[in-house]
């Protein structure tokens, strides 16, 4: 690990907070997208169509 001097804890905490928040956001977006795509497939498999699909 590189030496960041006497204030290293503040620097690591900054980068740690950024990693946690951004990784959490990306994970939420991916999980949400998967859940919605599954829900859409289920509905379409049950034969539900939107009027705009002409079905």
């Amino acid at each position, binding site marked *: 690990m590189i030496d960041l001097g006497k204030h290293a804890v503040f620097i690591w905490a900054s980068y740690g907070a950024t990693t946690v*928040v*951004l990784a959490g956001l990306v994970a939420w977006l991916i999980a949400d997208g998967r859940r919605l795509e599954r829900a*859409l497939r289920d509905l379409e498999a049950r034969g539900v169509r939107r009027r705009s699909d002409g079905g």
Partner: protein
Amino acid sequence: MTSPTLSQRLANPTRFLAIVRWLLPALAVVAALTIAVGLYMAFFVAPVDYQQGQTVRIMFIHVPAAWLAMLGYAMIAISSFGLLVFRHPLADVSAKAAAPIGAAFTALALVTGSLWGKPMWGTYWVWDARLTSVLILFFLYLGLIALRSSLDDETLAGKLTAILAIVGVVILPFIKISVEGLSIPWLGINIPSWNTLHQPSSVLRADGPKIHSSILIPLLVNAVGFSLLFFAMHMKAMKNEILRRRVAALTRAAVERAEREGARIPAGAGAA
């Protein structure tokens, strides 16, 4: 002029999803690579600052986070304008999708600024104009999210949130002026800067950047990288929102169909 055609092409949600399908993975890869290069430069290329020592490394995430906090709000305000004035079908999707992402970057600007303030200013927080105005920006984001989620009618929620977003845009010049003041002599405007510990911008200045290129270039690489990440996340959030509205519409259609069929069978059974 390509922009009207582009916005017309993007106006259709189905076409938007088709573009996202190839653009989003490309954007995500370029964002990840740019951030990787930026972080490498932040830790191994940029020299320590003669005053701030190693803590200057916090700048490489603090400054991009603060820029994106303001860019995110500007995007919401522009999208809200697009919704209220042009009724652009994707404007509300864009405004809704940007809110949690902008709020996250605002929170990061506040947290990293606080962690930088403690070793440099001797305090995590002061109620000065810059810090307070960015805190208000964070509360505005929370207000937009709370207002939208408190209304079941999606169209009404979109319009009311858009009005709040446009009213709240006044915070953006306030954040900028809070540290630097504003002087436009030919208009007779002369706003002094508020009393603040926060330093003025070293990059976006009328007289050009005031940081040495050994620190400026890593900062710009990180700014571009985090901006690309912002756009990738916004695009993904917009795609999710379009899917969410389709799921809601299909669920409503399924419920209506079930009700029609459910109503017919007992009626027929009763007649027989």
